[in-house]
């Protein structure tokens, strides 16, 4: 018999009515020393009324839908899954925990002029479990320091923030499909945040940055422009601004199971 079933409710109602009837019928017989039974009868009937009303309210509000929800403790959230840094990366950057590491990505994604550069700050190596915030910087093939961009395969120290990872990419004039696939690869291979990424678009690549942000609005936040009319002049300031809008580095969360699509339907 379910806790919110009509059968239980009807049973409670019948028992309650029976209790009240018995109290009325027996009232006159309980005299002398038995008068205490009257008090017990009153309290018992009050209890029956409270239980019945409680069951009605519970059926209406579905507070305790099952006996199990009344009796058992809920299942606990699952423990965090501890992430580890890629061992090859740790070997390549022995001083990473002190100075950070500028990683040259091993492949050139579609629509880019060369392999992306990924700045991993010292925090990345000091805390192998934290998910660091990420900013993606998109520049055109021809954008150099004059536009606030980096040059060649090196990034100035001033454009390497300690508060998060930065992905530097150069796109060619062609549609950069690799821009959309690269974040998933980075999330898979590095311990970085899955969402809340900042985007910086430099000069002529600003439209590509906007396309990226609007195509994947779940992962990316607002775009910061550099080297455009109305945009910022310096990349360092743009990175600060983008990181200030991103979630901080966080340890792996405790989680509950996600609802399967069929569970809600």
């Amino acid at each position: 018999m379910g806790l919110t079933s009509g059968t239980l409710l009807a049973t409670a109602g019948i028992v309650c009515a029976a209790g009240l009837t018995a109290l009325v019928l027996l009232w006159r017989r309980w005299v002398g020393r038995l008068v205490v039974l009257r008090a017990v009868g009153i309290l018992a009937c009050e209890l029956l009324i409270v239980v019945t009303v409680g069951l009605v309210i519970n059926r209406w509000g579905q507070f305790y839908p099952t006996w199990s929800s009344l009796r058992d403790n809920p299942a606990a959230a699952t423990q965090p899954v501890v992430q580890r840094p890629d061992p090859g990366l740790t070997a390549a950057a022995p001083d990473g925990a002190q100075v950070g590491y500028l990683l040259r990505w091993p492949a050139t994604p579609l629509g880019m002029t060369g392999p992306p550069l990924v700045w991993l700050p010292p925090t990345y190596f000091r805390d192998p479990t934290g998910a660091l915030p990420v900013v993606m910087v998109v520049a055109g093939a021809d954008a150099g320091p004059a536009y606030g961009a980096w040059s060649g395969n090196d990034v100035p120290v001033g454009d390497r923030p300690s508060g998060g990872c930065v992905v530097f990419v150069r796109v060619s004039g062609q549609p950069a499909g690799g821009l959309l696939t690269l974040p998933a690869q980075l999330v898979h291979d590095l311990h970085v945040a899955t969402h809340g990424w900042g985007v910086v678009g430099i000069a002529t690549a600003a439209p590509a940055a906007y396309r990226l942000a609007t195509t994947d609005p779940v992962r990316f936040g607002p775009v910061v422009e550099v080297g455009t009319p109305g945009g910022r002049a310096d990349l360092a300031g743009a990175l600060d601004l983008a990181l200030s809008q991103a979630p901080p580095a966080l340890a792996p969360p405790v989680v509950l199971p996600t609802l399967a699509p069929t569970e809600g339907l």
Partner: protein
Amino acid sequence: VSPDSPLAVVLLAGLAAVAALTTALIWDRVRDWRRWLIRPAAVLACLLTATASTVVGANYIWDFYGTWHELAGVSTSENAPSAHAVISVSSSGSRVVRFVVHGRASGLTLTAYAYLPPGYDDRLKAEQLPVLEVLDGYPGSPHVWFSALHAQSLLDQEIVSGRMAPTVVIFPYQSPSSTHDTECVDAVGGLAVDTFLAVDVPTTVIHEFRVRPDGAAWGLLGYSTGGYCSVNLAMRHPTRFAAAASLSGDLHPTIDATTGNLFAGDETARNLNDPLWRVAHLPPVPVALYLATGLDDRSLLPEIGQFTALARPPMRVTTAGISRTGHTEAAWRAMQPPAYDWISSWLAGPLPSSGLSR
């Protein structure tokens, strides 16, 4: 003796027993015309004492209200101090303070509590922190979070472990009367609670605490009615709140005897406060939503399924289910740590007042 103490329950249960015994004893002793007065009065006394002990017993179990004023439905802003009064300090160094929100936009003046994380006064002194506005269910009050739901210790646990960023957490009252469920909306011709929570509370908090003023760092979280409030407020004010977490919250406003006719028959006003209607009929807004429920909460599961199917980017929806919980405080205790971690991952983090360290 507070209304959530076992002593109050024992006293009132004793009073109910005395009323029952007195009724039993005097029933045959009163005769002539006086029995028509005394016997009904005795029965009434039995009913009243039984009702009172049941109400206080329920309050003891579920910790809805911490003071007799609240339990009786008296205004929650009365006698509140204007300065920050410390309510509790944890072993981790966090503290809860009480303050008053004088709502200029809404015209409401209500008490609120602020959780200040460990290190707020020293290690984090140079940082502006993100903010979480936390809302309770109905019946309920902020007191529920600190008693039955153990919010202070759970927040300490998540922040100290690094799963949640240091955050200032605000627990505002959502109604001047504990007997009136406002559903956190601007009632047509009534209380402007939406304005109070989305405008007045942020204005006061930004002025009185060291927090980030921008919406990217503000979130909402609530259970039951507070969960509905959180989702509704976030969808209505996406520039003020970046994320919201609902623990067993409906996705439509409840209208019943405790709310009164909030929308006075104005269908448009009702629809605009209905997250399910909004997600189906209005352009999606850039907020992240976390919808958690007990897997045996059969009334809520279909709503979440419907909402999730309708949600489109840039709105982001994460769902979570927990077994054997129902619509209970045990559920909301278990749901809190994952919800805190989740919402922190969607809010902009602490910001050094002097800019980011490089």
